[in-house]
């Protein structure tokens, strides 16, 4: 059916950049993480030697984008990832496509699907019947 290789799956690096991705990986690994623990982990495994404040900025942005949730414990924020890696990639690439299509408007492309909620209910019922029919529905 498909005669060439499927598309390469995007990685967190593709959508967040190397440092953002490294931070997310550290948070996924730690579960509950602080800026200090992430900075230490990145320095330890040689991924990044970025300053504490850089890591804090990155984590703040990831929080703003809804990728990290945080709670204040005493004087520090404890961060937790809001989704697993696969779910996050799916959500982000879907959002990016939606934003792109919305930006250029529905007149910029012809899509196969249609808003079935707006069609005649009888036609919708018949469509469901046809979709559920056997091979004789050809």
């Amino acid at each position, binding site marked *: *059916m*498909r*005669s*060439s*290789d*499927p*598309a*390469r*799956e*995007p990685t967190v690096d593709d959508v967040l950049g190397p440092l953002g991705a490294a931070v997310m990986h550290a948070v996924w690994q730690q579960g509950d993480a602080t800026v200090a623990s992430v900075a230490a982990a990145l320095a330890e495994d040689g991924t990044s030697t970025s300053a504490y404040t850089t890591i804090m900025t990155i984590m703040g942005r990831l929080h703003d984008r809804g990728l990290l949730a945080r709670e204040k414990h005493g004087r520090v924020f404890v961060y937790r990832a809001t989704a697993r890696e696969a779910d996050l990639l*799916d959500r982000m*690439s*879907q959002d*990016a*496509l*939606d934003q*792109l*299509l*919305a930006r*250029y*408007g*529905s*007149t*910029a*492309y*012809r*899509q*196969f*699907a*249609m*808003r*079935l909620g*707006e*069609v*005649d209910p009888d*036609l*919708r019922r*018949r*469509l*469901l019947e*046809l*979709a*559920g*029919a*056997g*091979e004789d*529905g*050809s």
Partner: protein
Amino acid sequence: MRSLLTSALVVTASALVCFVLSAITRGDPLVVVESIGGLAVAAWATTALVLVARSAMLAKQLAAQGSSVLIDGLPCRILPTHAPRAFVAGVLRPSVFVTSGAIEVLAPDELRAVVLHEAHHARTLAPVRASLVEAWWPALQRVPRARGLLSGRLAAIEIEADRFALAGGASRRHLASALLKLDPAPFAVGFAGGGDERLRSLLDDEARPGHAIPVEWMAGLVVIGLAAGCRLAGTTLGV
């Protein structure tokens, strides 16, 4: 109150346009008609150009995100997102875009039906043709008959693509089940039109002709023809 104000503005603007045109043409009615025709064509062409440019930009941006594959020998670009969608965008060489989500949810025969449908759109420059139809929308959306003609023409473009898929070996059942499985983009509202007509064509065994009038080309030609007719009449009759 708002509609009253809008009406007053329209009347004032129309009167102003007529006054300016009469002053320029010194009251020659044929030149006035020509000028109005010219303005209508210019407005339509500008709107169409904007819509076509949007399609080109979108295709360019999407092409950077997707990778090329062949599905049943038909070139497609796969977009790595789980939203199950299929569409075509672009101007001179439109591309078929299928998301990895669509490939996951569609059975092979359904995917083939969808790709055949979209391949017809690509082959017949559907994004450009649809843009030319939709460029009339701002001017004619309040005229019920024109509105029906425009949305009917858009439905006809979809019906042509469905028939191409059927002629290529897809079944009505697979087109129907693919319609149920794929998501329309949530913001694709308003001037999508003609949904009932497309479904009737897909559901009925007897082929129903879509709107035969190719509005996307004819409408502009009619306006140009009228202007040319006025000019000819002016020359030959000395009006």
